[in-house]
């Protein structure tokens, strides 16, 4: 059972104590009311702001809103909503007053999708948190054939390396951190072990409302042990809507997505989505053709990939109640998903595979509960739980042949050797329970507290049908993680907001291992490891003037070791129960500047500086056939990223972003078990095989009423750029003879036509229209020119 430390107990007692003894004293005034359209529809998401002040809210699903903590006196209320004409109203509030007012908005059919920059949309509210967070709305991508990956790829500091086409492996990197160091969430539920069908490249945009990317400093409510940040994907939260889309494109790519929600007046709701992805990924690549003897027969031949099909189907259904006395939201859901993925090549494109396949299936029941003002006014509680059952199969059973890049089999004469090595059929059964309990208490307009408790219990069982006796398949792993976080938010005034937080990490790992399997001393011993760490941080933001906000944040954070890293796999990875978590000091300094002129020009400038100092990074020390994980590595990242967005009325938009990151190896030593600790000759050198300078630009034009009434025609152009980077460490070797991943540029064009006030949409996209050669790390080739056509039908109630 989990043992809380003294510190953590003090935290909890303090939190509960202050909760009970404090009464919310409120001498400020508030405004409350309802917003509907002329037709009587209740409007959700309407921005209600006080002009020239830093206060605002949005209406809920019932069209209701409450704006609290307003100083008595004169104010101008601004009401704005996409597709409706804005309104203003002057009011005079007396202390303690609750001013009731209802608004009726008039439709402005030609202003669909217009972003009112003076209003604070949900996106801007997220962006204005003190954390270094970038939030991107998926809405503008709904008619494009993009997926979560392409949205994220346009965020400064984010780099996604994808090995090939749809469904291929992704490596997400955020300010130089990647892999387990960055954590992913789906509506706040950790996605770590959701299975491969929940790939960033396979979640269609139409299922997503927005994506929040937390850089380096992760708020306590996400309750996780991320070393370098977190990504939270928020799916569509509307109560009544239908959005169906289908796209078809190059490489026999088909993607279908149906998203919808229905909510009865009595609060009963059903919501969900079904997504299907299919692609042959048979794009052409330039490769050498080798004969049976290994000689190159033909050099640099253009061939189509022949074993790269990807299929996935995911369904997510939730049902329950909203806006009831017992809960603002109580939803029971289940996510079911599966995929199968042919693998065309390994880490490089040296040799193609013709029979290697991975498959995964997941069933994930979920529970969500949310209630504001539970027991006391200002006391909010939410609970997110998921049980995630995933089976992953790695299939490498085709023996006796190798393939050349023409897809022709070449005999090897072996009945035991498959394409990756000895034939194997490995099944991994994962069972994971995660739960997150968040509670918050608002004392008054200046002080609030939030407490998060998250629990993760992971169990993995490996089985290889063809090699059942392999020791690493005999010993299941269990890992329990508890994270307790407390944060205190101080809003000194409406310009200055500061959050202080602390996180306690508890790790408990169990496994068993066999000793002396080849003699009479054979025995099985169980292993257990317990660890406790304490992280902390601060995030602050200040409006120098209404258009300019500066943000600074810091976190000392940990990434707990995985079960395998700590306890080995009973075979070739030795246990190291003394292994410590990876830790990092993450600093961010950023600013956001918004300026509008003459209601025509709108300008946004955002910049961010990052500094990361990571230590105790887990390093693989190899000895013969075995390896041990040790804390050895150090890395430092220094980076700057910026973006500029300009729009002229609704007609023209231009956005440019650029990222520079200098990630260097700072380890003093490397370890080799034969020679012991040795000098790290690459100390201070830039980490190879990782882009360090990259950017993107996007320009768009919008024409109204082209051909049909209530129609829109959008033309978008996107430019992507990655500077040349080294394949291996820079310091050694002849400069002319060093392998590089060359500078890459690509251009995408998109044409979208919407009519029926956004109900019917057709999108045509050409990616990489100049057909430039594009690469991933290890010089894996990516698709050339590709066309996609998308149809979308959408109704919003």
């Amino acid at each position, binding site marked *: 059972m989990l043992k809380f430390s003294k510190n953590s107990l003090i935290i909890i007692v303090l939190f509960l104590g202050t909760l009970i003894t404090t009464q919310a004293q409120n001498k400020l005034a508030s405004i409350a009311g309802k917003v509907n359209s002329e037709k009587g529809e209740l409007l959700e998401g309407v921005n209600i702001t006080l002009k020239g002040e830093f206060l605002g809210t949005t209406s809920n699903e019932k069209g209701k809103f409450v704006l609290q903590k307003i100083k008595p006196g004169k104010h101008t209320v601004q009401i704005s909503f996409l597709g409706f004409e804005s309104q203003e109203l002057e009011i005079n509030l007396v202390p303690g007053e609750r001013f009731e007012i209802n608004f009726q908005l008039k439709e402005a059919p030609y202003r669909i999708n217009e972003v009112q920059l003076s209003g604070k949309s949900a996106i801007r509210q997220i962006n204005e948190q003190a954390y270094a967070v970038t939030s991107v709305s998926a809405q503008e991508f709904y008619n494009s054939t993009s997926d979560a990956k392409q949205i994220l790829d346009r965020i400064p500091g984010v780099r996604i390396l994808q090995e090939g086409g749809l469904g291929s492996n992704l490596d997400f990197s955020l300010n130089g951190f990647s892999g387990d160091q960055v954590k992913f969430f789906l509506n706040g539920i950790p996605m770590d072990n959701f299975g491969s069908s929940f790939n960033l490249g396979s979640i269609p945009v139409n299922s997503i409302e927005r994506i929040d990317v937390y850089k380096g400093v992760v708020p306590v409510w996400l309750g996780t042990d991320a070393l370098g940040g977190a990504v939270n994907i928020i799916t569509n939260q509307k109560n009544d809507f239908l959005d169906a889309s289908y796209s078809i494109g190059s490489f026999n790519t088909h993607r279908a997505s149906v998203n919808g929600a229905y909510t009865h007046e009595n609060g009963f709701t059903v919501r969900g989505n079904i997504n299907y992805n299919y692609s042959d990924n048979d794009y052409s690549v330039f490769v050498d053709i*080798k004969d049976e*003897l*290994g*000689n*190159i027969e033909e050099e640099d031949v253009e061939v189509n990939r022949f074993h790269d099909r990807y299929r996935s189907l995911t369904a997510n259904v939730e049902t329950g109640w909203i806006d009831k006395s017992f809960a603002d939201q109580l939803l029971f859901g289940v996510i079911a998903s599966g995929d199968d993925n042919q693998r065309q090549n390994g*880490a*490089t494109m*040296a*040799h193609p595979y013709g029979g290697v396949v991975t498959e995964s299936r997941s069933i994930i029941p979920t529970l969500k509960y949310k209630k504001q003002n539970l027991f006391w006014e200002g006391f909010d509680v939410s609970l997110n739980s998921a049980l995630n059952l995933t089976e992953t199969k790695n299939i490498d059973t085709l023996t006796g042949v*190798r393939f050349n890049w023409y897809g022709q089999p070449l005999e*090897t*004469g*072996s009945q*035991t*050797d498959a394409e990756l090595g*000895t034939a194997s059929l490995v099944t991994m059964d994962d069972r994971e329970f995660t739960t997150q309990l968040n509670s918050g208490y608002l004392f008054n307009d200046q002080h609030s507290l939030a407490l998060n408790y998250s629990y993760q219990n992971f169990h993995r069982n490996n089985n290889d049908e063809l*090699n059942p*006796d*392999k020791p690493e398949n005999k010993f299941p792993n269990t890992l329990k993680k508890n994270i307790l976080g407390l944060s205190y938010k101080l809003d000194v005034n409406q310009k200055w907001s500061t959050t202080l937080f602390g996180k306690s990490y508890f790790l408990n790992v169990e496994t068993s291992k066999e000793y002396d399997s*080849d003699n009479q001393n054979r025995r099985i011993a169980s292993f257990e490891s317990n660890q406790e760490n304490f992280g902390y941080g601060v995030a602050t933001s200040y409006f120098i003037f209404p258009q300019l906000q500066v943000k600074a944040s810091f976190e000392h954070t940990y990434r707990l070791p995985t079960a395998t890293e700590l306890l080995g796999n009973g075979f070739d990875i030795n246990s190291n129960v003394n292994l410590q978590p990876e830790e990092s000091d993450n600093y961010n300094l950023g600013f956001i500047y918004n300026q509008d002129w003459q209601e025509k020009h709108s300008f946004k400038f955002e910049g961010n500086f990052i500094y990361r100092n990571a230590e105790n990074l887990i*390093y*693989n020390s190899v*000895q*013969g*056939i075995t390896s041990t994980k040790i804390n*050895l*590595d*150090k890395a430092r990242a220094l980076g700057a990223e910026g973006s500029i967005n300009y729009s002229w009325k609704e*007609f023209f938009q231009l956005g440019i972003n650029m990222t520079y990151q200098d990630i260097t*190896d700072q*380890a003093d030593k*490397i370890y*080799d078990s*034969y020679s012991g600790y*040795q*000098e790290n*000759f690459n100390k201070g050198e830039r980490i190879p095989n990782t882009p360090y300078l990259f950017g993107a*630009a996007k*320009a768009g*034009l919008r024409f109204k009423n082209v051909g049909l009434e209530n129609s829109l025609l959008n033309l978008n*152009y996107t*430019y992507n750029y990655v500077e040349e980077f080294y*394949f291996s460490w820079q*310091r*050694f*070797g*002849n*400069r*002319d*003879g*060093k*392998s590089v*991943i*060359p*500078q890459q*540029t690509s*251009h995408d064009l998109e044409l979208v036509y919407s009519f029926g006030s956004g109900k019917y949409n057709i999108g045509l996209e050409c990616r990489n229209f*100049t057909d430039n*050669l594009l690469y991933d790390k290890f*010089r894996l080739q990516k698709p050339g020119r590709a066309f996609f056509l998308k149809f979308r039908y959408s109704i919003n109630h």
Partner: protein
Amino acid sequence: MFLNQLSKKIAFACLGLAGMASIVSCSSDDDGTPSEETIRIPAEGMDYAVSVAIQGSEGDFTYYTFPADNLMEGTLTAEGQGIEQPGYYDFTQIDQTIYSIGGLDDNNVVGISKNSEEYLVQTGDVSYQNSLSDMVKADNNTLVSVTMDAASDIITFRTFNSNSLTALSSKEVEVAQLTEVTDAGLSYSGMAVSGTHLFLSYYKSNPDTYATAYTDQAEVAVFSYPELEFQKVITDDRVGPIGGFNIKDGLTKDNQGNIYAVSHSNPANGYSQSAKPAGILKINNGETEFDEDYYFDIEEVSEGYNVLHLHYLNNGKMFAEVNVQDRTAQETWSDGPLRSVILDLNSQTLNYINGIPQHSNGGRRLPLIQEGNNVYFTVSGENGIYIYRANTQTYEAVQGAKIEANFTAGLFKI
């Protein structure tokens, strides 16, 4: 009026797009792979080449081969120079060419040599999905490689033209022809071609647990050359299996075509148990059986220890390393602690070389150059890796240049 406004808008927008396009730089056609022609490392007046491995902090390795003129002074570094090869490589010199075998997710065979213009250049571009266990000289124009793995049911031989480095033929042999054992596979430990025969030594290990349950005799498989037809397995129960994990020195050929087979059964080199003493056997030139009259009792001359990492010098002398711990005291897979010695195969004597610290090697090929009575080799110690020059007559060694590397993969005379 409206049209006029629209055209203005379009003109403005096009201006914007054009502006964007102008910051778009031209993409290059270069795919980033340095071509063979671009790799020319000046080596004028340089008599030696060093292949070093630099380990990245994430466990990755990159190899560099660079020329050197003085092995005894200063620091030898690949900084800014040398042929780069990312991945995991093994280097062997046959005549005037250095062959690097290995790669990243690939197994290339690349030749490195000094051309007539005194540049180090690269030749050849054959590659395989399975790694080559070793490659040896078969005759003046031919190299032969072998691929074997304890988990595989076949052994694959390949022959290459040693000048152009093109693959000439491939021959698969079923493991079942060599052994009836089913709970262990054959792991490579040595290969030599003498006259019309190819000799292949191996030890038996379980592919799942790496346990070595069969250690009561030496086994060498005999094949015809150049046909590479399996002929027989010769055995000898005076010692245990020949060679060990990843060292490739199980069989050593002298200048007369005799082959020496070494057995050590060391836990430090991959054995989970042992049954026989350590020693060296001999197969005389032209014969296909162990010489029953020859037995070099290593334990007797080394105070109960054993030898490995053999390198034939001349006149019956061999450079070798002694593992100076009893088998029972050895740390598994440690390939140490080692001391360097000179063996005399005829007089059956062993002489420790003075002036060299105890070291470990890491289960790799032994980098060594012979020049008359001097041998140059590298030893890794607390302060880094240094070249040592030892006299094969006096058995005295002196420390030479420092090598900036995490380990030396090869030391060659070019």
